[in-house]
């Protein structure tokens, strides 16, 4: 399909489990589309050149920089943003751990970091501190010095592991 540079194209995608549509020019960045067309302002834009990681969202489950993707490339895909994390009963375990460990201050970079952490925890059940730091190094935070985030991710990995260990095995481990 060829579109003129200034032509507005209808883009339909699944945002946080709901089908959403909006219009974008061929050059519209995904982050701008999410924020200003679909109103999902939880995702922030920090550098627009793919270094700071603030705009990270999950595209078909994979953590991606939404400033380095065009809105039209997201057509038909599943997008998950920070707005998807909290549950009915309140903050998710990861969000709670961030709060508990004082892993955020101004909160501007937090949305992208949470999305990377979620993807990481899906992939790596028992991470070392070095692995967590390596994953987080794709993000810039100027407020916290990162310590709280590292602790929060390790904390959540531990509790999620404990929750998935079958009872019998748990007993064995306790012995």
């Amino acid at each position, binding site marked *: 399909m060829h579109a003129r540079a200034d032509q507005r194209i209808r883009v339909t995608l699944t945002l946080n489990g709901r089908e959403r549509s909006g219009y974008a020019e061929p050059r519209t960045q995904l982050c701008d589309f999410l924020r200003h067309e679909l109103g999902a302002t939880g*995702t922030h834009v920090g*550098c627009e050149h793919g270094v700071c990681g603030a705009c990270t969202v999950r595209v078909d489950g994979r953590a991606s920089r939404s400033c380095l993707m065009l809105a039209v490339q997201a057509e038909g895909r599943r997008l998950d943003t920070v*707005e998807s994390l909290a549950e009915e009963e309140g903050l998710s375990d990861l969000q709670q751990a961030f709060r508990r460990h*004082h892993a955020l201050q101004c909160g*501007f*970079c937090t949305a992208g970091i949470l999305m990377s952490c979620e993807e990481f925890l899906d992939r790596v059940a028992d991470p070392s501190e070095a692995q*967590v730091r390596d994953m987080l190094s794709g993000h*810039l935070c*100027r*407020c916290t010095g990162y310590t709280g985030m590292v602790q929060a991710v390790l904390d959540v990995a531990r509790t999620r592991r404990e929750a998935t260990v079958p009872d019998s095995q748990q007993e064995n481990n306790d012995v």
Partner: protein
Amino acid sequence: MNAFEPALREGQSGQIGRRQPRIEDDALLQGRGRYADDLAVAPGTLHAAVLRSPHAHARLVGLDASPALAMPGVHAVLTGEDVKRWARPFPVGVRQPMEHWCLAVDKVRYVGEPLAVVMAESRYLAEDALDAIRVDYQTLPVAVDTEAAIAADAPLLHEAVGSNVVSERHFRYGDPEQAFAEAEHRVALKVRVPRSSCTPMECYVVLAEYDPASASYDVLANFQGPYALHTVMARALKVPGNRFRLRTPPDSGGSFGIKQGVFPYVVMMGLAARKAGAPVKWVEDRLEHLQGASSATNRMTEIEAAVTRDGRVTALYWDQVDDCGAYLRAPEPATFYRMHGNLTGAYAIRHLVVRNRVALTNKTPTGLNRGFGGPQIYFALERLMQRIAVELDLDPLEVIRRNLVPSGSFPYRAAAGALLDSGDYPAAVEQGIHEGGLEELLAHRETARREGRLYGIGYTVAVEPSISNMGYITTAMTPEERRKAGPKNGAVSTATISVGPLGDVSAHVSSTPQGQGHRTVVAQVIAEVLGVPLESISVNVELDTGKDAWSIASGNYSSRFSGAVAGAVYQAAVKVRDRLAGIAAAQWQVEASRIRFAEGQVIVNDSELSMPFGRLAGATHWAPGTLPEDEPGGLRETAFWSPPQLEAPDDDDRINSSLCYGFIFDYCGVEVDRITGQVRLDRYVTLHDAGRLLNPDLVDGQVRGAFAQGLGAALMEEFTYGDDGSFQSGTFADYLVPTSVEVPEPLILHRETPSPFTPLGAKGVGEGNNMSTPVCIANAVADALGIADIELPLTPSKVRTLIGIEEPARPQGVGEDQTAPAAGGGSRLTASDSVTLPGSPQAVFDTLLDPETLQAIIPGCHALELTGENAYRADVTVGVGMIRARFDAQVALSDLDPPHGLRLSGAGTSAMGSAEGSAQIRLTEVEGGQTRLDYDYDAAVGGKVASVGGRMLQSASRMIIGQIFARLAQRMGGAAPRLSLWQRLKGLFAGRGGRS
């Protein structure tokens, strides 16, 4: 009067001092923060983009916005002409004939200086239109290096001043001449502190409206204060303060001082809205931010100490030059004077000579940056203390100990006027030594050195000033000038607490937090005093100058929250409490002093009497007739608080520049990799005495954050400029800041000596490690390498040079990288090559002179038009890395020596920056009727393009130039050249082929 005592009366709930999780976090973690760019805008709002100068210094000859205005979706363009009509230059802190307007009017003085604003229906369209504005510049020689800029023959930024030194002051305290005369030793050091920024993750955002009916501006911006700048902005806009309403959003994506620098854009966008006749929104991008927003002030310091044999410093000599960039922007020259009273740091040094000069250079104007003035002072002072230890062969810790302000001498009046409020510095140092495990660290160094590793330990002590005296900046004036101008002093804080008809408590503070969690601490203080649940309290931190209580000291700077703002909250809460106690006492016929507020109840001590807080407070709304006679009804109290200790500078230039002075003792161990030059931080211990801690979790958060930024300043961060003033740190790939793998966890230690001068005994703590950490790491590296000259940032390549190991020979076949960013340009490239072409030298020569050939062989050439003798105007697109720029270029053929050679040169500007280059071409006949074409080229780029790394430019230019001659060869291989331009014109210009 210190109101610390009554707080203890309320102490039952223990809210103050508790590790309370933040009430801010729920929203922020769910993406429900409301930052400036998230807020709804008025229908019809236009989006702004700012045109910026690619040159560091140039006269503006002309600016034509009409092509931009003709583009679809573009509504208006604001230029210097409009600004001159509607606005005034910004007021400045020193009296000099120099003008700083929000858009350049006569000259541009730094790369990135705003020239015009386009207002269009989307940001994309506005940015497109920037490229269509035609600007004619006449470039001028630049003054970029600080030392060169203050030399007598330097190009002048502001000609009317007659010098680039726009402020010079000399100070003398005690009897330094005698102290130096009697000194057994003198130890001197010359240091430089580079430019850097704490770079908040959110860039500047401004939403502006202009109402012609009331001739007033209404602007929302992520401005952080100080609100003294409200007066600067109102004056620039030529309106009274009440016709300039400035509002801030609920949340801010960090600031660290940097968002003070949004103020020129507040004025600019106000004028843009006026020009467009519509609301205007501007969101700065990262390149704009790094290049043109603000920066810490770079400084050159020569410092010398008069020292006794046992390491006691009796006098200091300071000669400092601050480089404030192209304009002295308010509150500069505050980088000097914020620290002036405590120039002697944590030491009891009684004699002092100071010379302060402020230089202007062709760089971005400077402003607040976390630690403001501190890193500059402590880098010189604490490096000097380390040098004293080395030169006198003493333990550096012993030198520190011998010079500390002694225990039991507080409040202590320092030589330059600081009234150090409280502390016990010697005891704090001993605590840090023991609790931080110094002995173990020393043993570790011993082992490492025995193994031949480069290991060092660095120490730093510092006082961390907080709650700035609004009068300190007048220290930049002479006592006579101050007498004429009238006294300036104090620092007014405000807080408002209201209780609604349902007994619900709301609070407002004018501290414009930038992520520190002020709302949580405000709620803690109120919960403590009024005994209501913390969760029930609503705290609003948006500031609206149109309706909120504020003063010039309002805002988020000088670590003033915990000492001053939380103190004002406490006082407002006490006012509310005392009124309610009076009402309850009248109702129950008891003494007001027996009434206590706890657990949501109002209770009479030693009795059965109690009632819910909401019921008592509600009565002030529902039943004012039942209240005691002196009780007016309603319940809203505002406290204004200004400490009397913040006096104006005296006639001897002594100034208590801050109200509180925390104490810091840091030490660290580093290991330097001999091969890579990388500095690895092995252990970092930081002890703080910040008075009473209101929420230790938030305090630790501040320390960690400042430590990470201090580490960045020590090892990575620097805004670099080319010799032509081009800016070279335009992305986060060029300006490196620490990530999670570079920041270790510091060991944080505390002691609490309450300040006698703040209502809750708290002091500021947010900036200390920005001041202490860079020099602490530098001292450790100096110890590891045994060298005196240390310049930040200690990047691997710099440290490698300091280590001074012979680099092994370059493997054969690997070419020299000839990028030479230091010599001449933003990035200057030279190289040579040759190509063999079919045809005789004459044929090649003629082909080169054919305009059609020229157009065909220049990659990306859209059009070429003849403008004069062998001169063309070309429209060329050049791509380097991720940047594609369309250049308006002048191409010329010169030094014509048919058929042996000629010079092909070009210079162009584009929205992405400027480029110039030339190639000397030599033609030699070779076998087979062919011609060998040898060329040497030399190219330089400036502006935005230059912010791309030199290696990328080198390969891109090699490729582009290679393409030129490959295309020429292709063309030569084709049909015979037609009658060339040269042949057509040589009759006219024979023998006149000079340089064009």
